[in-house]
């Protein structure tokens, strides 16, 4: 093996790949060859660095130089200046928006300072297609330790003591789940990895599988050892081709190295993992629906109990954990439950990965200790609100989470606090909204999603969400009445109270939390037919200010629906019944004679 002195790590996550990171790699290699550095410098395509806002990212080791927004054409300069002459390319360094200082080492960047990477420990560090690199960072050590030093009971105890809770949304104690599955007697059991990540904007599971697939494989084998299963299944959506490809490669390597298959590490333990592709139905993230989908049945939930840990895949005890949950396991085993449980809050241990999105400066993937406040995440890591606008709300927990106001910014993030605040942890989506966002429209947007993704099995979710959406539609169109708000609350509560699965039980959360936190906006819509943030097009009114109108006819000529009339050099008039609120007149008018109300 060549002993390289310089490593160039390029983000090979889906986002950066679509921004030509493959091309950057090719280019870098070309210029390294040209510079005769082939023996010294190595180019590695890694998993996601998380700082997607500034991607594609190239990191140079050992000096830890962090280049942002790199283009393939920058490769020549990086090689010639940095590698050959030892002068980092200044223009590609990250510039701190507050101090305007260029920061070369990612450790000095606000985005990374408050992060703590456990689940994402290898993402952006190793080549996910190399099992050597995984092993070099303590990979498969935990599996070895379990198989040779710990009994299944001891291993489960370690996981229980760590306080790890399910990262897929429910927050069920992982060790307890393993114990229940272990105690279910059966001739066959299964370990299932839920990689059916479906929240809009969430990509933590995808990033882990793309950046560190072996961590999941190792954890599944450990779980198999604990519960007494020799078969694992990864249920992953077919829309994640890169993750599937890297996982497939990793599985092949693990088999070749005897880390999967029969008699693993000579201990007599057998474990094999297969991949099952999902078609992308959101509800298949619900474990019973996921299991039915794997069985070839319609992906819809069934009543629990029986829980999968008692009767799951093909009726056999099945332990279902999410990707991020599994990614934590090897670290817990290696560093111990005590170390892990030191991190986080009283009832939520460890870290949590969030996908930061929306009106925030640093969009990306972050991992913070439980207990970090929303303010730290949004302002310190996320760099605050885009374009200096005012923060309005943050939506956590995916489409069925709640929208929290600035009053909750100092809430330490953990399962229970978010629930108490009227939202939830979910799988870790975090969408930030600013003053321009209409909260009624936001609630409607999320309902559109759950409406599409409901399986249709139970009446409250199938029809109730549709009706909620229709009422919201009516409000945003200016036909809302005050009693509609009461109706929304009543219906939302019944849907939550009566729905079969978690989807329906939480789908009205965006409605309830926006009403609770932004009732004035609802009232403006229904009482004054006014959208305070100007987002509801139907509520906008374009009017011509007679005194300013010169009768130039420009608006008349640009109106696509002929709603504007008037004589040349005379003030014009907009017929409100014809106006489609496209804003063409407003934009064209040179005299500011059109007002928007």
């Amino acid at each position, binding site marked *: 093996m060549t002993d390289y002195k310089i490593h160039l790590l390029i983000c090979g996550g889906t986002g950066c790949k679509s921004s030509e990171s493959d091309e950057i790699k090719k280019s870098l290699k070309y210029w390294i060859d040209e510079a005769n550095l082939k023996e010294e410098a190595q180019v590695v395509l890694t998993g996601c660095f998380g700082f997607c806002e500034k991607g594609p990212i190239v990191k140079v080791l050992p000096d830890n130089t962090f280049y942002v927004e790199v283009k393939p054409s920058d490769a020549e300069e990086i090689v010639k200046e940095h590698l050959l002459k030892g002068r980092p390319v200044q223009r590609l360094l990250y510039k701190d928006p507050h101090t305007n200082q260029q920061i070369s080492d990612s450790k000095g960047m606000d985005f990374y300072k408050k992060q703590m990477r456990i689940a994402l420990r290898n993402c952006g560090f190793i080549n996910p297609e190399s099992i050597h690199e995984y092993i070099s960072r303590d990979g498969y050590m935990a599996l070895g330790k379990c198989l040779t030093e710990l009994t299944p009971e001891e291993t489960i105890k370690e996981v229980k003591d760590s306080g790890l809770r399910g990262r897929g949304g429910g927050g069920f104690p992982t060790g307890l789940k393993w114990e229940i599955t272990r105690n279910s007697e059966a001739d066959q059991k299964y370990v299932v990895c839920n990689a059916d990540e479906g929240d809009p904007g969430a990509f933590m599971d995808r990033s882990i599988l793309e950046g560190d697939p072996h961590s999941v494989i190792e954890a599944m084998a450990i779980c198999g050892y604990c519960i007494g299963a020799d078969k694992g299944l990864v249920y992953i959506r077919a829309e994640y081709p890169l993750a599937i490809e890297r996982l497939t490669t990793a599985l092949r390597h693990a088999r070749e190295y005897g880390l999967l298959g029969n008699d693993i590490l000579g201990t007599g333990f057998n474990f094999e993992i297969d991949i099952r592709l999902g078609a992308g*139905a959101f*509800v298949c993230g619900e474990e019973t629906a996921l299991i039915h989908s794997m069985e070839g049945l*319609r992906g*819809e939930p*069934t*009543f629990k*109990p029986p829980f999968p840990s008692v009767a799951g895949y093909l009726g056999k005890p099945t332990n279902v954990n999410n990707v991020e949950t599994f990614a934590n396991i090897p670290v817990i085993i290696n560093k111990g439950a005590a170390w892990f449980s030191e991190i986080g809050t009283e009832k939520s241990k460890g870290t949590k990965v969030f996908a930061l999105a929306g009106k925030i400066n640093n969009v990306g993937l972050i991992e913070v200790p439980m207990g970090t406040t929303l303010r730290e995440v949004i302002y310190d890591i996320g760099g605050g609100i885009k374009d200096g606008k005012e923060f309005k709300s943050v939506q956590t927990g995916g489409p069925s989470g709640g929208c929290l106001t600035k009053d909750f910014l100092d809430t330490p993030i953990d399962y229970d606090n978010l629930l108490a605040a009227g939202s939830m942890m979910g799988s870790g989506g975090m969408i930030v909204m600013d003053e321009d966002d209409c909260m009624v429209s936001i609630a409607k947007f999320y309902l559109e999603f759950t*409406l*599409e*993704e*409901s*399986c*249709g*099995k*139970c*009446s*409250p979710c*199938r*029809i*109730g*969400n*549709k*009706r909620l959406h*229709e009422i919201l539609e009516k409000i945003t169109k200016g036909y809302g009445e005050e009693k509609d708000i009461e*109706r929304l609350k*009543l*219906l939302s509560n*019944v849907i*939550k*109270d*009566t*729905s*079969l699965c978690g989807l329906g*039980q939480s789908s009205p959360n965006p409605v309830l939390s926006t009403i609770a936190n932004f009732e004035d906006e609802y009232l403006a819509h229904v009482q004054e037919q006014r959208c305070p943030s100007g987002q509801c097009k139907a509520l906008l009114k374009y009017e011509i200010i007679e005194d300013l109108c010169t009768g130039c006819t420009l608006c008349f000529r640009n109106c696509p629906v002929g709603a504007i009339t008037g004589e040349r050099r005379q003030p014009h008039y907009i017929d409100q019944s014809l106006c489609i609120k496209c804003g063409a007149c407003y934009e064209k008018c040179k005299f500011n004679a059109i007002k928007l109300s």
Partner: protein
Amino acid sequence: MDTVQLTIDNKPVVVKKGITVLEAATSAGVHIPTLCHMKLDDLNIENKPGGCRICVVEVEGRRNLAPACCTEVAEGMVVNSHSIRVINARQTVLELILSDHPADCLICAKSGNCELQDMAHQLGIREIHYKGEQSTYREDTSPAIIRDVDKCIMCRRCEMMCNEVQTVGVLSAINRGFNAVVSPAFEMNLDHSVCTYCGQCVAVCPTGALTEVDQTAHVVRALSDPDKTVIVQTAPAVRAALGEEFGLEPGTLVTGKMVSALRRLGFDYVFDTDFGADLTIMEEGTEMLNRLSRFLEGDESVKLPILTSCCPAWVKFFEHQFPQLKDIPSTARSPQQMFGSIAKTYFAEKMGVERDNLIVVSIMPCVAKKYECGRDEFKVDGNPDVDYAITTRELANLIKLANISFDRLPNEDFDMPLGESTGAAVIFGTTGGVIEAAVRTAYELYTKKPLPKLDFHELRGMDGIRQATIDFAGFPLKIGIAHGLGNARRLLEKIESGESEFHAIEIMSCPGGCIGGGGQPYHHGNAEILKKRQMALYQEDSNKKIRKSHENPFIIQLYEEFLEKPMSEKAHHLLHTKYFDRT
């Protein structure tokens, strides 16, 4: 037996461990309304997807409401079945369902028999607070069943029947969210699918989403045409169920009133499908004995077991699913078709009526019979042997339409010659009946000795698959019985794998046999009704003077005058059929 104690509506209840809150409540006399749930005791049929959410109850300590139909009882559980929270939720959920349901109750085929309508009444819904888009789908009409899925409430009963009970696999939920509905794959039409028209989906549909093709208008038109001679035949199971439509106790035999009503409706002759059933026994019994004797003589070309072929849904089932076995079932036509064939030849000749001017109507407990009488092989130059098959329910509607006070009708007898029948024929209407009737005749033809006893209790009952060995004067005749196509499939798979040792097998598609047919008065999930109808048929059998098909004097006469002997060439032509590979 392990028990648990819980409290339902402040009432302490001790129940068996493992049962549901719904069952516990029922046993304690607490009625919890249900919509999607359906359980047919003794038939092992249960639908509990937990989908409608009408049966939700409050369980102390639980975050959300629990569906009583799916929630298992637990020690110390405190259940409230009608708190304000529960009532509000129940009403809201029902309003939601109604908000996506056509409000055409006034003209809906299911009006008065609709479980959704009943629920709206029971929960006192006077206003639907949620208005909005309603799902609309194209109506799907087949020869027997109409799917008007705008009225589907996703209870999934039909799907459960089609997949789990019948293993036909045509109906399943498609689409997602608000657009989810039960349909054949790719929204294919039923008549392009492998649907057998067994009608069990219709039998369990709580609303008007699945109904039979109504042919009463055709019948009325024929009855009012002076140029037509209109005759009617009534299937055995109808007489044991028709009374229910007029408020009589399930299991009340109304044979005489039914005949009387049909005469008042204007049928020129009121005959009995039971005559066809006796004829079926003559043909099928003879065929069975032929195959059996040749088999016993070592003829290797003979295939056993012989399977009955009276049930059109069963015939279509094996034509789709087991075409490789299509040589095994008896070639005998069903009683309906034998009757039609004889009516339009022997009887028409006797009466001097042109075939085209003779209309044969049948009253059937079945919707598949509508499809059967339209099969090409049962037509002569395009004219069907049986013109219209209407269900028990359709007949009840006709009687109501004609202002006939059913309960005040006198008992009348069928017309002759095609109205004479035996006790053997009447039990065709229940599972086990066809084979018992066949045994009564085959035994005497085979052994040339009179039967020591006529009641074969070993062949009766409600178990899905039954077996019995009958002593045929020293020869142990092994008989299998299956009702429900899923049970039939199990037997067929055994035949295919060579594990089956049966000589003869009776198969009926509907659970319970024709008494549980898709055209019968709705049982609304009450399996007791089926058992009472079954008992009524055995009662009718034991009341009959003649109880063996081969002793029916008009059958004897028919052979003497017209058919010569069972399995004669003429009989072959008129009373037997062939099967097709429909894969």
